[in-house]
């Protein structure tokens, strides 16, 4: 054995050969056959998994397209409802109108002059600006 010190890091060929013989029995070929035979089961399992995965992959694209269509239709329908709601809201606000505006449309100079009370400054300004 050459390792007189821990700094000697060369492989010890003599010890290595002796250990190799001690740990080997010469039946590696038979062992390899045994492992390859056992691997058939693993390949079978892997094949089943691959089949499952490939089936899923085949269905993934049409499934994705179908899902997108459903989402698009749902979004379109929801958009229509939202649109209707907006229109209704817009009509409501138009019905309510601007009280000042509606009043000022009825005010004219003769009306102001015929009134018993002194007209409000805003009403006079409104009539003047319209002219």
């Amino acid at each position, binding site marked *: 054995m050459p390792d007189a010190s821990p700094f000697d*890091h060369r492989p*010890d060929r003599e010890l*290595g050969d*002796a250990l190799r013989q001690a740990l*080997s029995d010469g039946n*590696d070929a038979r062992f390899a056959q045994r*492992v390859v035979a056992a*691997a*058939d089961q693993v*390949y079978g399992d892997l094949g089943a998994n691959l089949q499952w995965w490939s089936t899923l992959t085949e269905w993934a694209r049409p499934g994705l397209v179908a899902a997108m269509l459903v989402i698009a239709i749902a979004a379109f329908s929801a958009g229509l409802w939202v649109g209707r709601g907006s229109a209704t809201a817009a009509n409501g606000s138009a019905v309510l109108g601007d009280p000042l505006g509606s009043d000022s449309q009825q005010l004219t100079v003769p009306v102001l002059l015929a009134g018993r009370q002194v007209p409000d400054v805003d009403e006079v300004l409104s009539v003047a600006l319209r002219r």
Partner: protein
Amino acid sequence: MEDAELAALAQAGDREAFGELVTRYAGPARRVARAILANPDEADDAAQDGFLSALRHLGRFDPERPFGPWLLRIVANAASDRRRRRKVRTAMPISPDLPARQPGPDVEADKERLREGLRDALATLPERQRMALVLFDVEGYSHREIGEILNIPDGTVRSDVFHARRALRELLAPWKDWKEQG
């Protein structure tokens, strides 16, 4: 064909490629398993477990790195798991009468006795030292590769190899002709 190519083919379902990998690494895998498990049948079961586990997880193998250390790490883990499951194996010291016996006319019997003595001596070492020694002196891996296999620093590998050699030398000292017999 390179190991990485065989591994890629094996992963793609080529059983012959996997068979070639098994043939290439059957010896090292069995020896590493036997360094951990003294029972040869149990060691072969562990080595087989390691090969099959490697086959299932070939997708995790980095083809840029060497295949051997990756595989042997899996085999070593499989052997260590088996050893832990069946509790601690009682390390058998070298038979006291073994060194005293001189090589006789039956050379094969003497060689077998020496191999048995080596296995027993190896079994007295801590598991990590055993593996470091076998991977370095028997399988020829570098300290860095062994560090990757055992998941320990290079310096620890050097220390383990040194201490394992020293312990084996002491255990085999009475067996004066072990070099010639081996």
